[in-house]
């Protein structure tokens, strides 16, 4: 591989070329952060060989890389681990390439390893070139343009309603059997509220020094109609309980279903 060295590359550059090369390598070291990893660094170093990537000397490249790492160390530049891994691998590759092959050794030969590295570099270089070509194309929004005022596609949603005969009949059946169980609804006119009962009782309990039947507190106009009477009884009973809670009255009942009697508390 060494015979493909571009020996003539710097021939007419003389010392000037050497200085420029040194400047270039110094620039590389300073710009280490600009590299996208060891392969990128190898590719850049490979380019200084000024040959087609397919003809690159991997041995020379390994040496370039190793001396670059050495220089970086001297300059106390901290190197990421993958640069060091690559350095170790290249040192191994170099020994493989230089030493006669060990017949007992398994695995790929030095040449195979070198060929693969050359392939990787060529491929990365090709992708880099492809990216440049791609981005140099006539691009949308820069060279080519879309319709500035696209006309929206309107979607007319048409709703089609359906129903089956069974559903129609079920609906009717539902309606016709509803009367039997019409929901219970409150009839406000025929309800005496607890508040109303309480109001009328408050005015009367002052006179209840003796036990009196609770029903006598039901307002007269609520006594005749059975429905109204039922509602008023409940309201009056609830109102009496409220008054007991307030400590105003006492209640008693001799036995189950016997009349409930009420008396003012003595204070």
């Amino acid at each position, binding site marked *: 591989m060494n015979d493909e060295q571009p020996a003539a590359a710097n021939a007419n550059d003389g010392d000037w070329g050497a200085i420029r090369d040194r400047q270039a390598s110094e620039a590389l070291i300073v710009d280490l952060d600009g590299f996208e990893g060891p392969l990128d660094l190898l590719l850049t170093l490979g380019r200084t060989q000024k040959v087609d990537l397919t003809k690159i000397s991997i041995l020379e490249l390994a040496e370039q890389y190793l001396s670059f790492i050495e220089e970086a160390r001297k300059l106390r530049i901290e190197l990421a681990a993958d640069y060091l891994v690559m350095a170790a691998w290249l040192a191994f590759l170099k020994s493989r390439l230089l030493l006669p092959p060990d017949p007992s050794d398994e695995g790929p030969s030095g040449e195979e390893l070198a060929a693969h590295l050359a392939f990787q570099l060529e491929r990365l270089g090709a992708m880099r070139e492809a990216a440049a070509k791609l981005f140099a194309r006539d691009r949308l929004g820069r060279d080519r343009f879309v319709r500035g005022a696209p006309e929206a596609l*309107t979607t007319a949603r048409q*709703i089609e*309603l359906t129903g089956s005969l*069974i*559903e129609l009949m079920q609906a009717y059946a539902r309606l016709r059997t509803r009367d039997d169980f019409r929901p219970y609804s409150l009839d406000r006119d025929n309800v005496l509220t607890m508040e109303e009962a309480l109001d009328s009782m408050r005015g009367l309990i002052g006179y209840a020094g003796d036990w009196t039947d609770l029903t006598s507190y039901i307002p007269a106009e609520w006594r005749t109609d059975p429905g109204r009477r039922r509602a008023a009884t409940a309201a009056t009973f609830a109102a009496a309980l409220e008054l007991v809670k307030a400590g105003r009255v006492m209640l008693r009942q001799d036995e189950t279903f016997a009349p409930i009697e009420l008396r003012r508390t003595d204070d």
Partner: protein
Amino acid sequence: MTETSTEPDAPEPDDPSLFLAPPLAEQERMIEAMLFASAAPLSTAEMEARMPHGCDAAEAMVLLRKRFDGRGVQVTRIGNGWAFRTAPDLGFLMSREKVETRKLSRAAMETLAIIAYHQPVTRAEIEEIRGVSVSRGMIDQLIELEWVRFGRRKMTPGRPVTFVVTEGFLDHFGLETTRDLPGLKELREAGLLEARAVEGLGPLIQGDGEDDAPDIPADDSNQDELFE
């Protein structure tokens, strides 16, 4: 941008028209591209300002309009400017129709059932049977579906309108006449009445109170009421 060197009157070297305007056909391409890419209509002055020196956008516009005459898109004057617009007869291509089928809502189905079984029937009668008020919007929707139409006015005070079902209704529900609708007894025999209890509505609790909300606004045009 082609420079025509065979121009008979060679202009003075510092004459701006030394740089001759591109050929008109090229200018036409330019205004075509600009009108296409612009979000808003462009006036000829605006276009000229972007074009190489010496161009005449108005003249190029004459060519462009002629070229698009009768095409699928047309160069249209909008205010002071020009823009491409779809030819009016092709507007139908710019809309997509999507047909969705939905079931009639329970409330609408009930109303329809009442009209079918009791026609001709007034709205008041429908309300009496359903036990809740019936929105005008719902009947309107049934009319729009062409399942219900107006019948004769009733000869009662106020002469209320009645509703009847249509041929379209019979068609959709696969009936010859409304007389083919089964009676209550047959419904029960068909198990349609028991089905309610199975549905979990329970024999004593009426409905779910949702679509039978006691006060539906009288003119509820909300069509959601029609489907679930």
